[in-house]
Structure formats: structure tokens, C-alpha cells
């Protein structure tokens, strides 16, 4: 049993700065949870408090049912993978992986069995006699993971483990981490500022901002049903477009009035939800992937046509991103690369209003 419970946990530094402001989180056995958020949101501090590397100013952390607030890291039965690997430079890969087991007085045969097993899982068997300086970044990261796996701990903690790798290797190692978790199934808490890592790896994503948890949920739920403007803007790449708008009743329908006299209809099934905001200023949110070209035989309901003039066109190969300025607000759309798009030439686009979001600008929460 290795569930992790975080109850009302606070981290306050000298001078009264609160990095973590009383968060609650329950992580189930075998679960892969990703803490994600911008720099300074408290995600790494939270992870380090779970590891025992930071003292807890308030609240309670329990691992496997037992409160660990006052237990040193070595007795928490956790393993951690650091952003900069933190391999012991004077030891071989084998010794790096065996070090924790040697300190725990495992017998030599058992240490060898575990190290070789981890090396097999991570495909680093041929590197066991090398020193860290003779390894590439990706190999070092595997060794760091191997050091965690051999311990067979209750919980794996990952602190931005892929941030130092180049883009291609990062994608490859992301898959490796997922594969390792599917093999060893240890409860995993993973910290990253990269929302794509969070989306691809997590069973549940915890979005943090300014020391509080904004939303917890499976990746698709966060993507489709963000609770706040922050989550909506943070999850998804390119980020969701936010456009200042006004909600108005008109000829039996509810319409969203955007700058440049653009009027978009609210889908019928959402009218009652938004009705109380009629006549008020709101923020209209739509993801770039829901603002596309008009496709022939497109059967998506609630498509609203609109003509916009891109100012910047970014061909990506598999798609083309176009950037449009609506009275000072930049919005992006993702269109088929086959559509000829160039700056200054109006483009016929369609907004998938079934995927729209409305945000109350007073609270920054979804309506």
C-alpha cells in the first residue's frame, strides 16, 4: 500500500513568504500523478516536502498510511529522480545504482540481481562499468531512474527529470518513463512545467499556481472542462484564446459579441447555463484547434463561420498556425496546411461553438 496523502500542507519560508498555501491531495496506490504549473507555483516545494528534503511548516503528509512529517528522507521509503540527474561522479553506473542498497545492507547477490534487472528494464546493461561523465544526457537520466527502480520504494518522485534533455530525447524518455511505470507500477509523483509531459504521462494532473491547487483531474477532463482561466490557458498548446466579449440576447438566441462586430451564437444546450450573464462582460475562450478552416462536408454541430485576416502565418508541416489580432487581442487558429494562407489575406474560418468556454472576468472561473 503506497497511497500518499497531503493534508492542509503549508510551506512558509523565512520572512513569511508562503510557497505552498495549505494544499490537500490524495494520491492512490499505483497512481501516476503529475504536478504541473509555472515557475514558483510551489510544485517542486511540494515534491521536496514529500521527499523530506524540505521541512513542512503546517499540515500533514502521509505515505502508505503513516504520517512522515518528522521522518528523515532515508526512512520514508521513497526514491527521487532529479532534474540534473545527481549521479555520484566518482562511482560507476553499477555503484551509483547499488549505493542505496549497499547502505541498506542488502546482500551482494540481491544487489546484483536488482541492478541487473533495472538495467534490463532501462536498457543500460552495457553501461554498468562506465562513470557518469562517459554517458550522454539520456543515458545519465536512465541511470538516475535505475537508481530509483532498484530500491523498489513505495513512491517514485520525479523533479522535472526531462528538462535538461533536448526536445527529441525528451519525447523518447517520456515514453520510457511511461513504459517503466506500466512495468513496475509504483506510485509516482512527477513534477514538470511542461503541460504536454503532464498530459501524456499522468493518470491525474494537478495544476498548481501561486502555491494553491487550481484543479485536479484526468488530462482529458482538464483539457475539456478546465475550472479556471489559468487551467484553461495552461493546459493545451498553443494556449486557449481569450477574447473580451459581451453576452447579449438577440432574436430568441444568446449571442457572444466580440470585437470587430463579430457575433457568434451560443449553442442551444448552453443557453440556460449562460443566461444569467446576459448583458455582462465576459471572456470568450476557444482553443486554436477549435478555430479552423471551413471544411467541405463538415458535420460538426454548432459551427459558426467568421472571416478573419491573419497577420502572421506559421506553417508547421502537419498544420498551419495563423495569428490574428482582434483589437489588441491576439488569437490563434489551426488550419489545414493545404489551405493557402498568407498575412493580410482574409481567411474563412469556423469556430466550433460546442467547444467554447465562457469565463467570468471577476472571478476568472469558468461559467
Amino acid at each position, binding site marked *: 500500500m503506497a497511497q500518499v496523502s497531503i493534508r492542509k500542507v503549508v510551506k512558509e519560508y523565512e520572512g513569511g513568504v508562503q510557497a505552498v498555501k495549505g494544499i490537500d491531495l490524495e494520491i492512490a496506490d499505483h497512481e501516476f500523478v503529475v504536478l504541473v504549473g509555472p515557475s514558483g507555483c510551489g510544485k517542486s516545494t511540494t515534491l521536496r516536502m514529500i521527499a523530506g528534503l524540505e521541512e513542512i511548516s503546517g499540515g500533514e503528509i502521509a505515505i502508505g498510511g503513516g504520517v512522515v512529517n518528522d521522518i528523515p528522507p532515508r526512512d520514508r521509503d521513497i*526514491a527521487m529522480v532529479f532534474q540534473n540527474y545527481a549521479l555520484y561522479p566518482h562511482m560507476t553506473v553499477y555503484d551509483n545504482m547499488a549505493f542505496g542498497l549497499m547502505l541498506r545492507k542488502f546482500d551482494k547477490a540481491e544487489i546484483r540481481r536488482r541492478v541487473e534487472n533495472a538495467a534490463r528494464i532501462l536498457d543500460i546493461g552495457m553501461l554498468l562499468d562506465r562513470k557518469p561523465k562517459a554517458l550522454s544526457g539520456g543515458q545519465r537520466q536512465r541511470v538516475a531512474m535505475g537508481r530509483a527502480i532498484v530500491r523498489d520504494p513505495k513512491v517514485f518522485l520525479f523533479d522535472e527529470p526531462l528538462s535538461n534533455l533536448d526536445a527529441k530525447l525528451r519525447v523518447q524518455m517520456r515514453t520510457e518513463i511511461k513504459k517503466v511505470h506500466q512495468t513496475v507500477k509504483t506510485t509516482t509523483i512527477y513534477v514538470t512545467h511542461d503541460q504536454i509531459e503532464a498530459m501524456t504521462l499522468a493518470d491525474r494532473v494537478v495544476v498548481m499556481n501561486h502555491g494553491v491547487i487550481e484543479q485536479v483531474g484526468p488530462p482529458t477532463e482538464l483539457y475539456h472542462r478546465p475550472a479556471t482561466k489559468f487551467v484553461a490557458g495552461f493546459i493545451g498548446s498553443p494556449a486557449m484564446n481569450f477574447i473580451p466579449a459581451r453576452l447579449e440576447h438577440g432574436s430568441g438566441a444568446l449571442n457572444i459579441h466580440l470585437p470587430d462586430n463579430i457575433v457568434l451564437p451560443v449553442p442551444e444546450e448552453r443557453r440556460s447555463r449562460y443566461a444569467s450573464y446576459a448583458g455582462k462582460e465576459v471572456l470568450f475562450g476557444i482553443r486554436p484547434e477549435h478555430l479552423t478552416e471551413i471544411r467541405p462536408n463538415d458535420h460538426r454541430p454548432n459551427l459558426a463561420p467568421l472571416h478573419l485576416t491573419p497577420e502572421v502565418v506559421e506553417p508547421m508541416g502537419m498544420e498551419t498556425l495563423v495569428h490574428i489580432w482582434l483589437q489588441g487581442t491576439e488569437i490563434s487558429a489551426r488550419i489545414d496546411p493545404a489551405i493557402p494562407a498568407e498575412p493580410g489575406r482574409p481567411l474563412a474560418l469556423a469556430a466550433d461553438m460546442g467547444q467554447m468556454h465562457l469565463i467570468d472576468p471577476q472571478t476568472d472561473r469558468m461559467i
Partner: protein
Amino acid sequence: MSATAASPSAAVPGLGRRIGSLRKERRWALLTAYISLVVAAIVMLAPPFYMLITSLKTSAEISDLSGTPWIVRNPTLDNYWALISDPMFRGFFFNSVKITVCVVAITMVISVFAAFSLARMKFFGSGVLATGVFLTYLVPDTLLFIPLYQIVGNLGLLNSIWGLVLVYPTLTVPFCTWIMIGYFASIPKELDEAALIDGANWMQMLTRIFIPVALPGIIAATIFAFTVSWAAFVYPTAFITRPDEMPLTIGVVSQLIRGDTFAWGQLMAGALLAALPPVIVYAFLMDYYVAGLTAGATKG
């Protein structure tokens, strides 16, 4: 016209001077470097060279002022044999060895522990203590030897090599601790965090991680402690008057200068013999003095 095809006589826009030649600039830089190094080498090596040729001369040749003093006409090893076969000189040598081994051992044990705790175990006043350690090094030893004379005298250790073993660490520990604080502080914090999570206690972290990783720093500190202890002159001059307790530095001077009579040949031979151990230690340890041992520990 492309930039590469620009004529060398063209002025660099904005800089108002002609386009230079990379090869020519490099040649000038090398030439200047070589000239400076040769001058420096001559200035540094002239005294030891003069010592060497003087030590190979007979007393008669040394006092003969005709001709250039930079050439040995009748080389002899008599001066060396006279010293090596003298039991008193051998006594000086072993006194120096005993003092140095003890001082280096005491210094390294104290400064490694002190530096580790000051660099890594954040506790109340650790920052002030670290600065304080360095400040004590700034007090000149010529000021300290009077109060230290009192202390050593009260302990009954005057005229004993153990008085020096007690006193030298006051010079070596602060500086070595300071060097080690710098080295330990340069070890990435994640390394000790990884060790803590792996199950190490503070002592294991020091012995299994910090000491091996900071070996270049430890060697640098060892060389420093060795040099200070081996070459100390002021303290033994003040504290030791009995020849059988003298270390090499003052032994050579006190026994080979009688009034206004200088046994120059033996003095030079003695000085060279005394300088030999540090040279050997440097030559041997420099091979291990490899910076960049931490390469590969973290991203870099």
C-alpha cells in the same frame, strides 16, 4: 560583395579601424606569451640555479671571486655528503617529517569536518563562523608568535617539536577549511539530497560522497598544509633552541652559520635538500590534482 570577399584594407564599419588577420593576431599573442613566460622562468629559476651551482663548489672555489660565479669549474658532491652523513642533519630532517605528518593529519581531519559542517549543515551562525574562520587566517603569524610563545611555554612544550605540532594548525586549519568550504559548496546540492534519499547519514555522505568528489580540493589543502608546516621559519626560530628538536629550516641555518662564518656550499646543499620533499610532493600529487572530477554528476 560578400563579407568574406571584403578586402583587408577596408575599414570595419563603426570601429574605424582596418580588418585584422586572425592568424597574425594569434601569432602576436603567442609571441608575447612566450616572451613573458621565458622572462618569468629566468627570474624564478635563477636563485635555485645559483643555489645548485654553489652547492657543487668547494669552499675555495666559492671564495675565489675571479671569473663568473655562474659556472662550476670543479664540481663536487662533498657538501651533500657532509650533510647526509651528519647525524644532526638527519635529525633535523626527521623532526621536519614528524612535525609535517602530524600537522597535515590534524589539519585535514579538522578542516574537512569543519568545512563540511559549515558548507552543508546550515545551523545558527554558520555563515558568521565561516567568515570568522577566514578572518583568523588574515592575522599575521608574526603577531601571533608572542602570545603563542606564552601558551606553548605554559604547556611546557618549548624546545619540543610537539609545541610546533600544536601551533602550526592555527595557521593551516583556517586556510584549509576555507579552501574546503569552497570545494564542498561547489558540489551540487542534489548530490547530497540523492545520498540522503539513498539512505546515507551525514557521516556516510561525507566519507562516501563528499571526500571522493572533493579530492582535488583535499589535495590542494594537503599541499598547502604540507608546505606551511615544512617551510615554517618564524615559529621554530622562536620556540626551539635545542638542536636535537630543530626542524630542517632552522637547523640548517643555525648549525651552518657560526658567527660571521657562512658555510655557503653546505648551506646551499642543505637548502636544496630541504626543498626536495615539497617538490616531490607537488610532482606526485599534481597528477591527482585534476579539476573537473565532478564532470558528469549533473548536467554540464
